[in-house]
């Protein structure tokens, strides 16, 4: 479904990605792992169009997307929930969700909002509150909900567990799995919490300073010596 081939990208003089390649199959949950600064977020930004790769290509459902501006990639079916959530903090929960559905028609959006409230009931309670007043966990739920409003085929999740309490994180990951199962939404998940990521993913890639160093099924990764020692701590 998504095919990233040898993309390189940099921020000015700093090289973030060096010929990164990965593939995500339909309906899968694929994890993108690595330490801080390894280039995981940059990979997602390259896919969603926020970062222009200097070489290589990205194909989605057979169509090349690496030259398209970010605004047009949403309507192709890719939704990016960015690192740090990037909510519209002064707008209400409802308005954030409405914006998530910006690229779609008005009537469909109203129904979908109810669907999102189904996944995240707490958001329904807070629908008129400004997004900035929500707790960390609620904000993450809102960010994911907003991303889902675009009815994406592929959902890019950047560090959904960041800064959240373990209980909340577990809940969110459970919901992510549900979404993947029920809507058949493909998910590319960037995470520093390797254990959690591998518990729901089928396949995984490990990035180190802009290079993919390991790719394998989740099972193999969990057993791999290097992964266990560097990222899982045992």
């Amino acid at each position: 479904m998504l095919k990233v081939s040898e993309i390189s990208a940099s921020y000015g003089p700093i090289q973030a990605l060096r010929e990164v390649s990965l593939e995500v199959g339909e309906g899968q949950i694929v994890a993108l792992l690595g330490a801080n600064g390894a280039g995981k977020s940059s990979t997602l930004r390259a896919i969603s169009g926020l970062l222009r790769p200097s070489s290589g290509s990205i194909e989605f459902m057979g169509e090349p997307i690496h030259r398209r501006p970010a605004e047009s990639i949403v309507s192709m079916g890719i939704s990016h929930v960015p690192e740090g959530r990037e909510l519209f903090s002064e707008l209400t929960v409802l308005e954030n969700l409405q914006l998530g559905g910006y690229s779609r028609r008005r009537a469909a959006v109203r129904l979908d909002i109810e669907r999102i409230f189904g996944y995240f009931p707490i958001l329904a309670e807070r629908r008129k509150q400004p997004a900035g007043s929500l707790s960390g966990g609620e904000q993450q739920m809102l960010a994911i909900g907003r991303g889902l409003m675009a009815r994406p085929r592929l959902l890019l999740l950047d560090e959904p567990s960041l800064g959240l309490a373990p209980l909340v994180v577990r809940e969110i990951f459970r919901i992510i799995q549900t979404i993947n199962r029920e809507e058949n939404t493909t998910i590319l998940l960037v995470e520093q919490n390797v254990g959690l990521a591998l518990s729901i993913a089928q396949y995984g890639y490990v990035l180190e300073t802009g290079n993919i160093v390991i790719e394998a099924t989740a099972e193999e990764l969990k057993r791999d010596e290097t992964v266990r020692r560097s990222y899982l701590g045992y």
Partner: protein
Amino acid sequence: MESLGQITTVLTAPTAAFLAAQPPWENPDLFFSQIVAGMATGSIYGLVALGVVLIYRSTDVINFAQGEMALFVTFVGWSLIQADVNYWIVFVLVLALAGAIGALVERTVIRPVEGGPVLNPVIVTLGLFVIFNSLTAFIWAQGQLPKGFPATPLGSQLEVADLGFARITQHQLMVLIIAVAVMLALYLLFNHTKLGLAMRATAQNPVASRLMGINVGQMLMLGWVLSAMVGAVGGILVAPILFLDLVTMLRVILFAFAAAVLGGLDSPPGAMVGGLIIGVVQNVASTYSFGPVFFGPELSLPVALLVLVLILLVRPTGLFGRRAVRRV
């Protein structure tokens, strides 16, 4: 600035003859009239201030050329009026031209400096100030200045509208009505349309907006279009009062900046409130004496600015401004 006294006197007409007037309790009619008249003037400041705020909100740029762009299109309106075009058609055409100019300016000279050092857009708008002012001078100053500009057909400059508790000119009443209409239209746009929501989103978080599929560049351009149009309305409404001259908008823009800052640079209602406050303070300070102190019209400018600075010291981001908290 030499004729500042004159300008203030004209703005506080028709009661300007009553300098150092009787205190409010002795002549409440005068007092309320001055207040309402001040609100009318203040609405004009508020409209121009609104233009400044609309741009600042989305791009953190202060458009120093706001007044001169409005001046330019108002002069175009004057030419159309001279050609016997119907007033309301001229109104619409001038607004359309203003919008087009706003879009052009954003696309050609603002876009290139949006990402760089924060002070650069200031230089660009100062350059635009100079360009528009001199183009206006070049095209229209050959003839006689100042030129007269008609008030709306619904309310003349010369006749009085008696509101019962206050008496102001009909034109001043129209100014208030039109200002309210503009505020209402903008409120509906921003809070009840998808486009308005998208513009608000772009102002807050351009990156996230792109991820929603919003074309941020278009939203920014639209902000400039609206801002220019609102400024043009201000120009059209002030021209009958101050007469069209090369320095007409200079007076207005100073008070408009004060109003925008007073209300908070990212708050559209704040701009209008700020304008009203400054308009009223200006009127009252130049008409009344406060005990032994009489500021008079010559000091109305420093007084208004003093009020502004004092309020800013208490509320550093204006009365309704927000962005005070920055994440580190």
